[in-house]
Each structure stands twice: as structure tokens, then as C-alpha cells.
């Protein structure tokens, strides 16, 4: 469902945390690698979209975010 716009930054943070928790995403702390981070995150989004049978786009679209916000088990979805 549509998301209220001013929440987008918050949603990106939420998505990063989700991918860290459940898809073994490790954010590169060194700021110089920002583009690498975004690519890495897109990979992880793709992995999550594939797991849930969503359209695999690598983009944090509203359907992907909706899925991330569902109550769930705390165990990761991928082997780690």
C-alpha cells in the first residue's frame, strides 16, 4: 500500500537493518565506497525479493517494503 512520502529516509534505514538481520547485508562503513554499498544493497534486495517470490528488481519498491514490515521470525532467511 502507498507510504506517506516523508517516511522514505526512515524506510531506507529500516530496509538496511532488515537486510542486515535476515540477508547477511554488511554495510561498508568507509564512506568512500557508497556506490559499492548501494550495489551490494541492491543485490541483497534482489535476494530477498527472490525468496518471497516478489518481482526481482533490486529496488526498494513499496511491495518489497511492505513485505519487510510484516511481523516475522528473527532467524535469517539465508545461510549465514
Amino acid at each position, binding site marked *: *500500500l502507498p507510504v506517506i512520502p516523508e517516511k522514505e529516509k526512515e524506510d531506507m534505514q529500516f530496509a538496511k537493518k532488515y537486510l542486515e538481520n535476515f540477508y547477511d547485508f554488511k554495510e561498508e562503513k568507509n564512506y568512500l565506497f557508497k556506490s559499492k554499498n548501494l550495489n551490494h544493497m541492491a543485490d541483497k534486495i534482489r535476494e530477498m525479493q527472490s*525468496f518471497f517470490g516478489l518481482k526481482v528488481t533490486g529496488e526498494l519498491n513499496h511491495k518489497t517494503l511492505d513485505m519487510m514490515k510484516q*511481523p*516475522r*521470525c528473527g532467524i535469517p532467511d539465508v*545461510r549465514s
Partner: protein
Amino acid sequence: YSTFPQSPRWRKEDVTYRILNYTPDMLQADVEEAISKAFQLWSSVTPLTFTRVYSGQADIMISFASGFHGDFYSFDGPGGTLAHAYPPGSGIGGDTHFDEDENWTKFTTSSGYNLFLVAAHELGHSLGLGHSNVFGALMYPIYMARDTRDYRLPQDDIDGIQALYGPPRESPAVPTEMTPTEAPTEMSTQEEPTETTPSKPPTRPEDCDPHLTFDAITTLRGEILFFKGSYVWRKSPYFSSIEHDTISSFWPSLTAGFDAGYEVDKKDRVLFFKDNQYWAVSGYTIEPGFPKPIQNLGFPSSVRKIDAAVHDPNTKKTYFFVSNKYWSFKENTQSMERGYPRKIEVDFQGIGHAVDAALQKNGHFYFFHGSNQYEVDVKTKKLIRIMKSNSWLNC
């Protein structure tokens, strides 16, 4: 199904468990029963036996905790992560933790999490199963409220656990999946079992099927949702294509077949009607205290269901259509307007029949009847034109 790396499993068949503490949300006896039933799910399809111990170290230690609770996976308050468990092993291996900040219940309601369902899932981890990406499997990572009366393991979970431990000794693995014939007989907030079984749901009608009709239609945060059976067609102002969903993908605890729906957009609130009950939702969240009987809105007891509903944001009144009459409901005072019901045809000329579904958009009402829809000016109530019902679906 999946297992943990190196597929750890218990190297014995008699596994012990201990319940270390309880949630204040439920009676202790109900907690114990929920957990015992969860273990039975797995013992019924494997050679494993589960014995409860009351002191000392058990293989599977079960506890409720909130926030940081001594391992490196702190809980996150209400919602989000509900529980977690560790794969078979010594020490914390096999242990199951429930987030105490959740509202635990023995029922299947929209305002709490069913402890039996979550425990059964976590015990799957305690026995060595990872997450499954099969929608409807117990080991699917997302919580889904389901009918827990004679709940049985879906086939994917049976295959997974038997890959680790084999079938039960006495008898060959018996398929224990729910069969569609066992759908609940009365309307409830519980999900129809058929949603969780691999049998094929009725096919979705084509968007441009000239005979396509709708049960209910409503706006929702700028989108338009069209309902028929369990299917939803979504028309978003941001995307040109029509998106197809099911009711249970938004509101798992509501069953299919709405009669009517309308949005009070200023309150970010949509009401759905089925038979003599109605629900209020805000996004995914079903407001607590629902369903409620439609008589609460002021209908006489003779009205057992409504056909359609539509809200006029200018007058803040909602029109409810029943057979050839309609009621006017004042949202501000939450009461029916005097002088109703009135005949639809008297006020809406050219609409001389029942209304299946109704929509308010861009200053117009759209009354759907069969495969036609009637565009009416909201202010003058004059009929403007007649179109095909599925003209909204890019047909």
C-alpha cells in the same frame, strides 16, 4: 524447505524441553498447551519424542524475554521480530525465545500473535529446519494468522523434517495437510484454510472480461481497489498497469467475499462489510474490537447485509445501498440520517436497480450493477453516462 549450514540435528530421539517462564498475556495452562501442541506437530511426523522437564538443563529451553536478553539478537518491541530459536546443539543450541513485547494469545485474532503457530515455527528451527520460501509453509518466515483448529503440517514442512529425522517409526509418513473440504463453516476472522493448501484457488477473471462484475470497490490512500471473491485489482495513480492481489495478502485474517467497502479518507480508514458484520482497517492494520454487527451503524435487524457503500467527502455522509433502497449515515455523529431509507431511484434518476458496488472519485459517484457502471454527479445526483464496469482496468 531448508536446513542450517551442515544440517545440525539432534543425535537422539528423546528430546527434552523446559519452559523457563511465562507471558502474562496468557494463562500458564494455555501457554503449556500451546507449546505441547506445537511439539506434537513435529513428533507426529518423525520418530522424535518430546519430554518436558521442570528443572536443570533441557535440550530446548523455552523463555519469554524483551529487548536485550543475553544473546546477540535483541528483540525489537511490538511487531517486527516475534521470536527466534537456535539450531540443535549444546548450550543455547535448540533454545527458543519469544518476544514478550508482543501480545500473545491462544486465539487467531488480528490483535495478537497465536503462540501455538509461532512456537511450532520456532521449534522447527530448534529441530534443525531453516526458513522455507514456500508460501503457506509453517517455516515461511512471515507470521500468518491461520485457523488453528486441527491444524496440520503442510507438506513442505513434513518433507523438511523427515529429511532430517525420517518418518515416525510406527507408520509411514501420512500426509497431514489440511484439505479444502475442511474450510470453516461460519464466517470468522480466521483465514480460510484453502489459502494455505497447495490446491488451486479459483482462477481470477480476466481484467477485460466483458462480464466482469465486482463485489465491492473502495479507494485506499489514493488507489482504487476492486474486489471479487478473494481477488483484488489495484489501480494506482503512480503505475499504469493494474496490479493483482488477494485479500489475504493484505489482511490475512479477513476471509474473501466482501459485500461492500468505503474509505473515509481524512481518517485513513476503510470499512469492509460482509454479511451482518463489518471491519475497519488502516493500511494493513485491522482496528481492534472488530468485526462489529452492522446494527451498530443503525440498521434495523431486518437488514442482514448491505450491497454497497460510498462516502461523500463533501457532506461527510456515507450512502449504504440495500436492495432498491439506500441509507444516509452521518460520519461526524456516527448515526443514520432521519428520513431514510429512501428509494434509490427517487434520488438517483436512472438507477432503478440494486447496486453491487459503489465508488466516489473526482466528484463523481460510480454505481456498479452487473457489468455496467453509472457515473453520477455527486452534487446534483444526475446520471452523466453509463460505462462498462471494467473500464477502470485499462480495457
